């Protein structure tokens, strides 16, 4: 019974850790907009965590620049299981307009498997909520698969 409760809890309280991997700030602003009174992601249990150790969902924005690559990967690794990696906007998914730049090491899926991608440049807050809800669902699946 407890296991089931805990599994359910995994979907009900996903905490985010947001990494800016060289983003133009557009997606970052939209992510913050999700926490504003109008969208209020907290009503679904989402919360921004201050450290990767507390996080369930890692939200990456930006095309993963050469400078940020190691840091992003290290931070993602520090998140305890079960974890879900979400790409916010087009950049981490495909490098977008920065494709082919000498200073870009992305896209992110070269290094880690991406669980959810949210498209948009920048995505609308509603789309972000959609994506996070999907991530929470995946989180529950991963939690159930543990042990």
């Amino acid at each position, binding site marked *: 019974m407890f296991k089931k409760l*805990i599994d359910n809890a995994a979907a*009900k*309280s996903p905490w985010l850790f947001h990494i800016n991997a060289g983003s133009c700030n557009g997606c970052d602003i939209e992510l913050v907009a999700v926490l504003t*009174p109008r969208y*209020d992601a*907290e009503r679904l*249990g989402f919360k921004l965590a*201050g450290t990767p*150790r507390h996080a369930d969902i890692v939200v990456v924005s930006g095309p993963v620049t050469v400078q940020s690559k190691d840091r992003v990967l290290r931070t993602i690794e520090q998140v305890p299981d079960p974890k879900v990696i979400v790409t916010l906007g087009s950049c981490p998914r495909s490098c977008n307009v920065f494709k082919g730049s000498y200073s870009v090491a992305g896209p992110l899926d070269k290094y880690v498997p991406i669980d959810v991608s949210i498209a948009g440049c920048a995505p609308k807050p509603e789309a972000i909520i959609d994506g996070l809800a999907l991530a929470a669902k995946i989180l529950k699946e991963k939690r159930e698969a543990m042990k």
Partner: protein
Amino acid sequence: MEFTDILIYAVYILIFPGALFTCLFGLWLAGVDRKVVARMQKRKGPPISQPAWDFLKLCGKETVIPAHAARGVYLAAPYIGLASLIVTVLFIPLGGLQAFSTGADTVVILYLLTIPTLAMIFGGSASGSPFAGVGASRTMVSIMAYELPFILVILAVGKGMTPDGYYFTFSLEQITNVQSVFGPNIFDWRLLPAAVAMLLVIPCEVGQHPFDVGEAETEICEGPLVEYSGKPLAVFKLSHAIKMFVMTALFCALFLGGITTGMLWLDVVLALCFCTAVTLVSMTLLNAISARWRVEQLFKFFWTVVSGLALASLLLVWFC
């Protein structure tokens, strides 16, 4: 000791008002706090059960122990903090229901309340993270900040004046008894500044928003908790919720005690309602309307304004 006595004590310690009830009520208070903050900010807010879900979720997470950590202290700290909080609850009279009359002493509670914070400080600094070091340092400064007004409040309440004359006591039981005869302390105008000071001490001791310099998640990655994950973190979050209950219950015992209806269970329910109300007034309102303070602002505020209020109360009680 009879078997039934042991049973009653077991119920006291483990169920009501001990471990189980404390945890549940603490989580409820935390949930109410989050909900009402959200509503005050014109948001819908999370369901009241949200802290409970957070707790359960953290229980199911992996516990990563940093390679640098002093493992024993790192893992033991949260559990020691939680257990000492639960025991502290047993010492605070709750609407006339006092599980263990021995040890119901304001000074003892003042010291017992530092144990959970201390557990967090040492647990955090055992993790070996520099953020935790800064967080531990800041948390210690906030302890230093609130301790001065806190003891002044305790002395002001401890020396109350009744129509018969003075009384001097550190015993919560006696404070409650006096109030049941002469009405709650909060209606005594001389103790009003002390009550306001106490309302400001509560969020600082709990580590609630404007005064959560030690756990600032945006500046120092939640300070002492930065490396914690999984169950130990869950226990810390639970302790934080229980602290709200302990502090508000202490406030009720000091300022809102002695209101009796004749039925014990009704008194207890009433006391719990008071606890919730105090949470809303002292923590939620401040949380909703203010941004986090800098650590030196906090220290200055507590050693000047809040201590001044408490001292004013002490002087009023002494000389009026």
